[in-house]
C-alpha cells in the first residue's frame, strides 16, 4: 500500500481523441477513438467502414469472369492473392483442373506479390517508428518487383492477371532471368541493409520488444491469422497445413516465433521474405512448358452449389465463400479477410499503453483497410 494517501482534489480528466480516418499512420481510413489519460491510452474503439465499396453486392450483378478485377480490389496491396482465392473458388465449383504451367505462374506471381507487400509493410512499419531511411530502402526495391509485374500484366497495383482456368497471359521470354537477377541483387540486401539499420538499434528494441504482446489464446479467440498468429507460436501457414496448387512440390519452411510482440511480427515478415525468394528460385527451375489457360466460355454457367476456399495471402488466410445458383452470376460471394479480424483485436490490445505504442502496434499488424471494409 502506498504510504501517501491519494490526493483527492488532484482529479485528472480523461479526454477523447479521434485518431483518423485522416491520419498519417492509420494505413488507410481507419478511425481509432481513443480515451487518453494524458499520454496513456485507457481504451480504444476502432471504427471501420470508411472504405466500404460493397464489392460483394456488385459481384452479385456481374458475371463470373467480370468478378476477377473486383476480387483484385479486395486487397490492393496484394491483388494477386485476393483474385487467386476467388478464381480457385470458382474452379472448385466447376471442379476444373488447370494446366500445370498456369499453376506455377500463379505461384510465381503470388510469391512476388508477397515480397512486394512485405516490403511495403517493412517500410511503413519503420516509418511509423520514425525511421525514414528504411522506408526508402523498402520502396526502392518494391519498384523493381512492380516493374516485373508491369512487364507481364501491364499494371503495377491491380493486375487482373488471374483467369478462371489459368492466367491472363504467358510471361515474356526474358522474365525468369530478370526475376533471378532481381533476387540475386536483392537477397543479400536483406541482411546487409534492411536489418543492419534497424535490428541492432537499441531504440528500436525498446520500442518493439515486449510491446503489444498477444497471447496465442487471445489471438485464436479474435481470429487473428497469418504472420501475426505465427508470431504467437502457431503454424497456420495454409500453404503447409492445407496445401493448394503446386505448393506440395516446393519445399520451404515456415518461420515461427513465440513472443507474440511487435518485434516477433516484424521478424516473421523478414523471414517470410527469404522463404518467398527461395520458393521463387525453385519455381523458376520447375516451370513446365505448355498451355497457360484452359479457355472458358464468356457466359460461364457454374453448377449450383457452395464452396469455401482458403489461401495464404501476405496478410493471413484469405478465404472466398462462393454460393452459385446455376446462373452465370454468383448468388453470394463472401471474402473472409485477415485485416478484418486484426482490426477487431485492436480494441482488446490497445489498453494501458502509450500513445506512441499505438502507432507501433497497429503498424506491426500490417492491416490494410480495403480488406477490412471490402
Amino acid at each position, binding site marked *: *500500500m*502506498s504510504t501517501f494517501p*491519494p*490526493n483527492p482534489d*488532484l482529479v485528472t480528466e480523461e479526454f477523447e481523441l479521434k485518431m483518423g480516418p485522416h491520419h498519417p499512420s492509420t494505413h488507410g481510413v481507419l478511425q481509432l477513438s481513443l480515451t487518453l489519460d494524458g499520454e*496513456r491510452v485507457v481504451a*480504444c474503439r476502432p471504427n471501420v467502414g470508411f472504405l466500404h465499396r460493397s464489392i460483394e453486392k456488385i459481384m452479385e450483378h456481374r458475371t463470373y469472369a467480370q468478378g476477377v478485377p473486383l476480387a483484385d480490389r479486395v486487397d490492393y496491396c496484394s491483388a494477386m492473392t485476393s483474385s487467386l482465392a476467388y478464381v480457385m473458388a470458382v474452379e472448385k465449383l466447376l471442379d476444373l483442373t488447370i494446366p500445370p504451367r498456369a499453376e506455377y505462374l500463379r505461384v510465381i506471381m503470388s510469391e512476388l506479390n508477397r515480397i512486394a507487400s512485405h516490403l511495403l509493410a517493412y517500410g511503413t512499419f519503420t516509418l511509423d517508428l520514425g525511421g525514414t531511411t528504411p522506408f526508402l530502402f523498402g520502396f526502392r526495391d518494391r519498384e523493381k518487383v512492380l516493374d516485373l509485374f508491369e512487364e507481364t500484366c501491364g499494371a503495377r497495383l491491380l493486375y487482373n492477371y488471374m483467369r478462371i482456368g489459368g492466367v491472363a497471359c504467358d510471361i515474356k521470354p526474358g522474365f525468369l532471368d530478370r526475376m533471378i537477377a532481381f533476387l540475386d541483387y536483392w537477397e543479400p540486401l536483406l541482411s546487409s541493409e534492411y536489418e543492419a539499420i534497424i535490428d541492432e538499434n537499441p531504440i528500436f528494441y525498446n520500442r518493439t520488444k515486449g510491446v503489444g504482446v498477444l497471447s496465442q489464446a487471445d489471438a485464436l479467440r479474435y481470429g487473428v491469422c497469418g504472420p501475426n498468429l505465427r508470431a504467437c507460436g502457431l503454424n497456420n501457414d495454409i500453404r503447409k497445413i492445407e496445401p493448394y496448387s503446386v505448393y506440395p512440390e516446393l519445399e520451404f519452411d515456415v518461420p515461427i516465433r513465440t513472443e507474440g510482440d511487435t518485434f516477433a511480427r516484424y521478424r516473421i515478415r523478414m523471414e517470410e521474405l527469404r522463404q518467398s525468394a527461395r520458393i521463387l528460385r525453385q519455381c523458376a527451375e520447375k516451370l513446365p512448358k505448355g498451355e497457360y489457360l484452359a479457355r472458358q466460355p464468356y457466359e460461364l454457367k457454374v453448377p449450383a452449389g457452395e464452396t469455401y476456399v482458403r489461401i495464404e495471402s501476405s496478410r493471413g488466410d484469405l478465404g472466398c465463400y462462393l454460393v452459385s445458383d446455376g446462373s452465370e452470376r454468383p448468388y453470394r460471394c463472401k471474402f473472409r479477410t485477415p485485416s478484418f479480424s486484426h482490426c477487431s483485436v485492436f480494441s482488446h490490445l490497445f489498453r*494501458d499503453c502509450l500513445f506512441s505504442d499505438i502507432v507501433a502496434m497497429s503498424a506491426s499488424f500490417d492491416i490494410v483497410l480495403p480488406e477490412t471494409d471490402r
Partner: protein
Amino acid sequence: MPFSMDIYAWDSFPIDTLLFWCFAAVMLISGLCVVTVKRVFHAGIAMIVCFVCAAGIYALLGCPFMAALQLLVYVGAIATMLLFAVMLTDKMMEPRPNTTFFQPFMGLFASVLLFGLLWLTVSSSKFGFAGWANSTAASSSAIDITSLSTTNIGLRLLTPYAVPFELISVIILATLIAAIALARKEDRSPADSGTPADAPASPAEPASTPAKE
C-alpha cells in the same frame, strides 16, 4: 594597428537610454495587461513579456549575470509552470466572474500603499549613477561595476554567505520531494508498478461496452 572590438560607437548615439525607456515602457504596459486582460492565457503571456523586459533592464544596468538568471528562472521555469497550470485548468474555469463594485477601489488603495512604501525605500538609499554598462567613462560612484561581475557573486556566495546557500539547497530538496509526492497518482498497487507510466489501479472499464455517444 591592433583591431579592437571594444570601442563601439556607444556614446555618439544614446542607444542605451533609448533602450532603457522602451524596456521600461513595455514593462509597464505588460504589467498593466496582466491585471486587466480578459483571458488568463493572455495574462500569462503579458507576464512573460514583463519578465523579459526586466531581464533587459538588468543587462543594461551592467549585471548580465542577473539578466541571464532572470531569463532562466522566471521565463524558463516559473512562467512555463504557470502557463502549464493555466492550460490544464482552462476548460474547467467558468468565464471570468464580473468584479463586484468595490473591488477596483480596493486595488487602487493597495497599489497606492505599495507605491508609498517603494518611494520611501528608494529615496532613502544612496545611488551613484555609474553610467551605462559599457560606457568607458565609468565615473567613480558608490557601487563600482566590477563588484557585480559573476566571479564576485560566485565568491561571495560561497565565502560570506555559505550558510544561507546551503540552507537554500536543503529547502529546494524538500520542495522537490513534496512535489513528487503530490503528483503521484492514486495509490499505485505494487503489482503494476513495473508499467512504464504509473497506471492507476482503477480497473480499466471493458472496452467492448463503450458509453453511448
